[in-house]
């Protein structure tokens, strides 16, 4: 089958019924142009598994600015420029732009070697500096004030002659949020592409030396053991043990409510106090972990929504009480990792290969902590605080009657929020009334209806003709897009009904009842022993992994954190199926074969 003939063209995509006006939600530069029919685009289901609310597209607009600048202009990667994005029916499609002219590649390679060489050569020191900078950014976003706009301005403005009225700070501080968000994303990508680059090199070497080595085994040799992204879950386990030690574990039954628990702990004297102290220690900063991946305003942090961590605590408490091992066996994991490395090293044909292996593994291990850890600081901690601040501006708009509900601020593009705030600033300055309610009211209502309608659409995993080259290391490693992926998607689209093919992410074969979830907010629906089928599994879904028997996702590549977690839980996983959430419905009986990468619908 020729894959080029089996993907639809951008111009062939029809509007979702009930959402024909979706274009009004997004800027002109996100619309497909006629010439885009000549380019290959894939649906970024990994980061954007749901239709985009108007404000949330900032999580594409800003990151792609940063990533492209980093790759194309800053470090000057020889064979890849940046990433372009388009939106259709509320979904984000992206394409990476390759450099294929050998003379160009040569020219860029020289500059790349100098700049990338500096970072690779000073990685640890620079990474430490990065941690300081990102911590400062997080403090800054937390410190942004949303002005009160009182009847009479603060007397200090006069007495200390600052000379600036409160409504000025509405714009300045709102923009400060956007500017800090942009700075954060620059920080996010600063090391990222270089990190992927070093990993790809080691990965390709292993695949050449051992053509039948599994992707996850390569990842195991490099991956860290004490990864920051595991820490929130580790804290929950610690809190469970603390509860049992303090004798307050009876206050954490299945289905307990956070408010009730915290209240009851407060009434439990010394023991309860001790547990509460432990709880406060854990939540700052570890409960800043998001239920999502950093791209939607409605993925709140555990601190914003304590029901998520409290849903996992009772199970851990039960395990501690039953004497079941609860700690991640880090020592054993470390030893196993070293054993695997030593074995593959021994199997290499000669000393040259072993020396090269040592070099590449060494570099991959230097870069991997950043690759694994940056998410917590950027997509989780910073991002949830960022959305929290925007929410506070939404509260300001709601107080002034521009919005019915503060949360509706996310139905407006960030430039429209600018207008709404200007409306309020003018109203305050004039002593008048903002005009926003009449203007934005119907717009917001329509957009909510359209988002609902667009949820049901299953986006094609790829559109346009097959690309000439796939050079971007992130595209290969993170999204798992290779020539084989394209062939698999094409075959699935043509489709044999009962079988869905993807990548074997974690071994084992199980059968069970499928639970198809489109949004992480629905994880409460999962029953014990079900098989999770979702657009993508994010590391923040870890608490639910204890309940499920297997995981299936639409998209995912070799660096999928979900694969690592699935392996730790000893459960089969198949990722990168392209269409599983479309082909499988909740309640169907399925077989997940994590060895072959096949999901079969049984009934």
């Amino acid at each position, binding site marked *: 089958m020729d894959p080029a003939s089996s993907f639809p063209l951008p111009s062939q995509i029809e509007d979702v019924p009930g959402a024909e006006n979706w274009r009004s939600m997004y800027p002109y530069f996100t619309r497909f142009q006629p010439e885009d029919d000549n380019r290959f685009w894939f649906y970024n289901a990994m980061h954007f598994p749901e239709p985009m609310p108007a404000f949330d597209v900032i999580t594409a607009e800003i990151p792609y600015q940063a990533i492209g600048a980093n790759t194309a202009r800053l470090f000057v*990667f*020889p*064979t890849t420029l940046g990433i372009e994005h388009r939106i259709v029916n509320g979904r984000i499609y992206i394409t990476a732009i*390759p450099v*294929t002219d050998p003379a160009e*590649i040569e020219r860029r*390679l020289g500059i*790349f*070697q100098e700049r*990338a*060489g500096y970072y*690779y*050569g000073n990685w640890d020191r620079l990474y430490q500096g990065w941690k300081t900078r990102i911590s400062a950014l997080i403090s800054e976003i937390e410190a942004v004030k949303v002005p009160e706009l009182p009847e009479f301005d603060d007397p200090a403005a006069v007495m200390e002659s600052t000379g600036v009225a409160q409504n000025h700070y509405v714009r300045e501080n709102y923009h400060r949020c956007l500017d800090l968000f942009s700075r954060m994303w620059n920080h996010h990508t600063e090391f990222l592409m270089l990190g992927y*680059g*070093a990993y*790809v*090199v080691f990965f*390709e*070497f292993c695949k*050449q*030396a*051992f*053509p*039948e*080595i*599994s992707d996850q*085994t390569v990842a*195991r040799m490099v991956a860290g053991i004490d990864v920051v992204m595991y820490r929130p879950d580790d804290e929950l386990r610690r809190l469970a043990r603390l509860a049992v030690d303090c004798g307050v574990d009876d206050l954490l039954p299945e289905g307990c409510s956070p408010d009730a628990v915290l209240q009851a702990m407060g009434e439990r004297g010394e023991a309860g106090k001790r547990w509460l102290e432990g709880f406060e220690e854990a939540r700052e900063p570890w409960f800043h972990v998001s239920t999502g991946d950093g791209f939607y305003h409605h993925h709140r942090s555990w601190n914003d929504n304590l029901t998520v961590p409290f849903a996992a605590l009772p199970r851990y408490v039960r395990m501690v009480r039953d004497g079941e091992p609860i700690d991640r066996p880090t020592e054993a994991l470390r030893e196993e990792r070293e054993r*695997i490395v030593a*074995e*593959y090293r021994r*199997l290499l*044909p*000669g000393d*040259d*290969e072993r*020396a*090269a*292996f*040592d*070099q*590449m593994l*060494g*570099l991959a291990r230097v870069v991997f902590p950043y690759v694994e850890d940056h998410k917590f600081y950027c997509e989780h901690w910073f991002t949830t605080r960022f959305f929290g601040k925007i929410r506070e501006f939404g509260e300001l708009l709601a107080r002034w009657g521009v919005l019915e509900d503060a949360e509706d601020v996310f139905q407006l593009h960030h430039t429209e929020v600018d207008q709404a705030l200007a409306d309020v600033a003018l109203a305050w300055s004039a002593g008048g009334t903002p005009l926003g309610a009449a203007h934005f009211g119907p717009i917001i209502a329509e957009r909510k209806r359209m988002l609902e309608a667009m949820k049901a659409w299953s986006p094609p995993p790829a559109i346009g003709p*097959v*690309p*000439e*080259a*796939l*050079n971007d*290391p992130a595209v*290969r490693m993170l999204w798992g897009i290779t*020539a*084989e992926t*394209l*062939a698999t998607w094409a075959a699935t689209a043509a489709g044999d009904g009962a079988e869905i093919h993807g990548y074997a992410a974690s*071994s084992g074969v199980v059968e069970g009842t499928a639970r198809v979830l489109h949004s992480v907010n629905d994880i409460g629906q999962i029953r014990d022993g079900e098989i999770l089928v979702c657009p993508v599994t994010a590391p923040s879904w870890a608490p639910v992994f204890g309940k499920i028997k297997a995981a299936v996702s639409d998209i995912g590549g070799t660096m999928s954190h979900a694969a690592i977690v699935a392996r730790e839980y000893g459960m089969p996983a198949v990722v990168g199926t392209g269409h599983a959430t479309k082909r499988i419905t909740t309640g169907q009986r399925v077989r997940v*074969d994590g*060895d*072959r990468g096949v999901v079969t619908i049984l009934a």
Partner: protein
Amino acid sequence: MNAQRFVRGLNEVGADDRAVAGGKGAGLGELCRAGIGVPPGYVVTAEAFERALRALDPGGAIRGEVERLPADDAAAIAEVTGRVRARIAGAPFPDEVRDQIAARYRGLGGDRVGVAVRSSATGEDEAAASFAGLQDTYLWVRGADALIDHVRKCWASLYNAEAVGYRLRMKIAERDLAMAVVVQRMVEPRCAGVMFTCSPVTGDRSVIAVEGCWGLGSALVSGDVTPDSFVISKVTGEIVRRQVAAKLRMHRAGPGGTGVAVADVPASLQRAACLRDADLAALARLGGQVEDHYGTPQDIEWAITDGAALQEGVVVLQSRPETVWSRRRAAPVATPKARAVDHVFEQLGRVNRVAPPPPSQAPTTGPER
């Protein structure tokens, strides 16, 4: 006195005993020594063959006549070897030899125990030994009389026309060759097959490739069935690839429990994997042991019987050095560079053209053997 001359237990011979036990017998003895399970049995030695040949042909005329054949005269070769085989097949069996064979046979389990009777030619030239009837294996032979008969058949196969033709072309002297015979208790396997201790497809040394079918391994070897195939990592134990085929036919004991019959596989088993995860783990361990013993990748025939313990149930029927990949000098995958980052610069300076995907690896009819 002559207790050891005409028969030897498998555990009494090793790699150095090719002249006595033939290639197959010596190989099986070597496995025994390495503590690897093989079906219990013994060797009818080369000396037994010589004894019988001397009784039949005291002057050594047979060998002489064969050696004088023109290498390119197919008709003459066919005529002479046909006559020689007929003489051997009908020759009187020396009593001493018969008694020792029968005694050891009873030791395997009684008067009617089923055995495999397998040619095992001696001689320095491995290829000559292969040609000289390595394929001749008779399964499910019962009773001392039938056993003696099949031993004679193995002896006769030394003079197969193709084998003789090869020896004449290679100018291998007849006196350098004799035929030992391996006699082993039959296994009734649940499943059987072949494993390579490196990938037969890519030469990857970190994996073990297994193919298996229901019943006797002869179904797979003969191409009568499309086998299940698996690839297992030697390092992590994970099953890297699993392909379950539709296994329509199997081989098992024939009527009366003798010979081999072809049977249909019941529908419920056709698409069921013939090997469970525990079986694959046991096979991988076994393969690793055999490979470590010989120090080079092996091509191993195995069988699994559901017995008291899994360890007892997994046996090796034969092991030969893998020849395709072991002989190749692998092109170097990478050499160390001045700095680790130089690997990155080389890789990231490369354009990854989107090649058409490889043809799908559908199961075929199994390896040629």
